[in-house]
């Protein structure tokens, strides 16, 4: 039963107020993309056992989407940040690196 702080309204929401939305920072491929690119956009997922960046919506709340950095093996949350970001913010990356020195970094 996770708690994530919604960066849009500041509520420390519990999991039942949220809906999960899968991996964050996916790049959309539309018409004109190759089969491989489109397949990767639709299906290839990092699915890491460890640090993960993912989408959440504060569904029973302000209704906004936001992103979270979370460990899938311990459920530790490193931070949440606005959905309008195309890659993890530097401060969150730094925080993760401090806590998990052997983390290979985003990408």
């Amino acid at each position, binding site marked *: 039963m996770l708690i994530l702080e919604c960066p849009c309204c500041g*509520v420390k929401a519990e999991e039942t107020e949220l809906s999960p939305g899968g991996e964050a920072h996916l790049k959309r491929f539309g018409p004109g993309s190759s089969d491989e690119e489109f397949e990767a956009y639709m299906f290839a997922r990092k699915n890491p056992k460890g640090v993960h960046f993912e989408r959440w919506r504060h569904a029973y*709340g302000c209704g906004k989407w936001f992103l979270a950095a979370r460990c899938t093996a311990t459920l530790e949350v490193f931070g949440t940040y606005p959905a309008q970001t195309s890659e993890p913010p530097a401060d969150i990356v730094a925080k993760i690196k401090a806590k998990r020195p052997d983390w290979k970094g985003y990408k």
Partner: protein
Amino acid sequence: MSEPVSALGGATHQGFATIREIGPLGMITLRAKPDVKGLAAAVKAVTGTALPAQRRIEVNGDRAAGWMSPDEYLLILPYADVAAGLAALAAKLKGEHHLAVDVSDARAVFRIEGAKADQVLAKLSPVDLARLEPGELRRSRAAQVAAAFWKDGEGYTLVSFRSVAGYVMGLLTHSAQTGSELA
């Protein structure tokens, strides 16, 4: 035009707290970013209140303005004044990107009153009510449906969707039964 009827026609229940369905209230959903020019004045024109800050509700008699999300406000006013309110918003925000719609009929509103009113809500919402500040509007859920509420005098005002008014009344009634006080 017929007389507007609230979802439950003003149903009430007396348990260890008092539950009343009230309304219909006039309600306008206003979507705009806080930095939109003239927004504060527009809200003031409709509710007579300041533009609410994050998670706040500014109350002014039977009018109020609540912060719903970074680009959404809920304006509350007498039911009959909605059209005028919408007109005022249209006039004040002309040319600015915004959306204002009448949602008076899409909502049901309840009052939960009494010294133990918080115990009724504590059975339904995953919210730390002891830390809910006066004038704070909390959007959450009541059991299985969305709800927004704030503390108002000795009690709470709770807003839900109209279609589930019967369900919400059922929840509140169940939770307020005499003998099931939490303390």
